[in-house]
């Protein structure tokens, strides 16, 4: 049992609609996992069940050998699960540094009595993410790619063991995709486990060690990237062949 995250027979219904049906998945410590599937296949629902934004109707989700069922999202974040949002959700009344100060204060240095240099640490993370020149600017002035980087930076400020990147590259240019990919590779290099949801196939192919494919709420395929693209099920459901 070396899996960091273990999703066992998880189901989720919205009224009569089955968003996830009996999904089981294990993610190993340090792994780079790609999660693909057509729109509406349940990728974000699965992520919401893991991060706690949604409660799964059936099954269990275990993280670091602890059952997560019933834990609020902030409690899961404190246990080491961080996520970025598909549509960036910055704290827009704050500067990027202040955005990062929230997880630094509420997770990383929670309950620590003496004053840490939270501002300094936030600046260091933003510098690392390539947002060095925008650290104290208003969030309203950030471009799309900068907002995506801010999402990742804010997630990283909580010092997670597992980072879930929900379509961090959608709508970005080729060069910008490479920038974000480079950041994710760098984070992976520090030992963080990463689940990447993405539609951009070349990014998935380059980044993932293993890819799983969801379709209509079911896990239909799993394997290394080169196998996955050849899988007829995946081609039918996703690649449109």
């Amino acid at each position, binding site marked *: 049992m070396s899996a960091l995250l273990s999703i066992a027979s998880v189901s989720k219904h919205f009224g009569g609609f089955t968003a996830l049906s009996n999904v089981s998945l294990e993610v190993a410590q340090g792994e780079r996992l790609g999660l693909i599937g057509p729109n509406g296949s349940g990728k974000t629902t699965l992520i919401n069940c893991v991060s*706690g934004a949604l409660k799964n109707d059936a099954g269990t989700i275990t993280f670091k050998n602890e059952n997560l069922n019933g834990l*609020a*999202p902030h409690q899961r974040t404190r246990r080491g699960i961080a996520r970025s*949002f598909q549509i960036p959700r910055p704290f827009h*009344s704050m500067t990027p540094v*202040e955005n990062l100060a929230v997880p630094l204060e*509420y997770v990383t240095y929670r309950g620590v009595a003496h004053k840490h240099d939270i501002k300094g640490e936030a600046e260091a993370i933003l510098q690392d993410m390539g947002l060095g020149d925008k650290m104290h600017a208003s969030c309203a002035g950030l471009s799309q790619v900068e907002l995506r980087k801010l999402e990742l930076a804010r997630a990283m400020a*909580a010092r997670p063991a597992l980072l879930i990147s929900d379509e961090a590259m959608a709508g970005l240019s080729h060069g910008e995709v490479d920038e974000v990919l480079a950041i994710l590779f760098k984070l992976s290099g520090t030992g963080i486990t990463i689940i990447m949801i993405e539609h951009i196939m070349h990014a998935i192919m380059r980044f993932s060690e293993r890819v799983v494919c969801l379709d209509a709420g079911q896990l239909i395929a799993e394997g290394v990237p080169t196998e996955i693209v050849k899988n007829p099920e995946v081609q039918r459901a996703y690649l449109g062949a």
Partner: protein
Amino acid sequence: MSGKMSGKMSGNMNASAGSMGGNNRIFVIGCVGVLLAAIALMAGVKIDYVFNASFVVLQFVVLASAWNILGGYAGYVNFGTSAFFAMGGYSALFMIKAFNAPLLVQILVAACVAGLLGLGVGLISLRLRGIFFSIATVAVAIILETVILNTEYFGGAKGLQMMRPEPMAPFESYDKMLFFVMILMAITAVAISRYIERSWIGRGLRAIKDNEEAAECVGVPTLKLKLIATVVSGALMGAAGAPLVMYMRFIEPVSAFSLNYSVSALAMPIIGGTSSWIGPVIGALLLGSVQQIVTVTISSELNVLIVGVLLVFFVVVAPDGILGLVRKLRAKGGTSGAAGSAKGGAK
């Protein structure tokens, strides 16, 4: 409304840890100064009307500061200030009727009752956000008013008249005593509001206001923080309502639950600026004084109109309130910046 307000919020970096010690000293000196001025006023002025009028203005400083903790910092617009205020008043009435309790005990009990009411309203925020939360707070006020209206013990619709006891030792009149109690409450409320704004609670509430889901996902215990905000805000409003019985010598539901309290408590922070503790203070002092002057010189009906017109004016022209205007002037820099800070300092 909350959505619009949060969208327009300007984001200044909170005072960094280094400069906070100095600011705290200035704040404490300011509070002591206000207290000394009040004592001097009580010693020097014989006319009770001055204290009567100041009492009302100070009451609004408490209400506006309390409202801002939830409405300004967390973005949950409470339209039911009158419910908390009146529950404070009726709790005091109960303590007088049942135990003949002194004013201090009345205030403490009122704060506890209104704090519990705040807890209930906080739980509403689990399911309702934005305008729906605001409507629910109106409903709470209407329900409680109906309950009081039909409770014979509290005098029902015709209300109850109460005799004032003798003022306590150092005070020569009851009006002066109430004034002094209210100024202490105002200082307490402002200090609490300022503490919350600058502490970890304030940063979390701002995150909630900006995006509640994202706040939860970066580790902010949103429910806990919202409950802290609703309980503290409610308790302060209840405390402000406690002296009402002795101030009016009379209490009845329609005036105690008056929509006027709800609207003023919301208008004052918006006019002053919701992003900082000083905003509601500026708004309450300004609007409260204008209301008092207009009530005496023109008519008591007109002051409601003035609140309305000023509110609309500020929402349209200066959505960040007087604080926002001052900041804009400062941001322009140079000479206009100096003028802006002078204006801010004068307030």
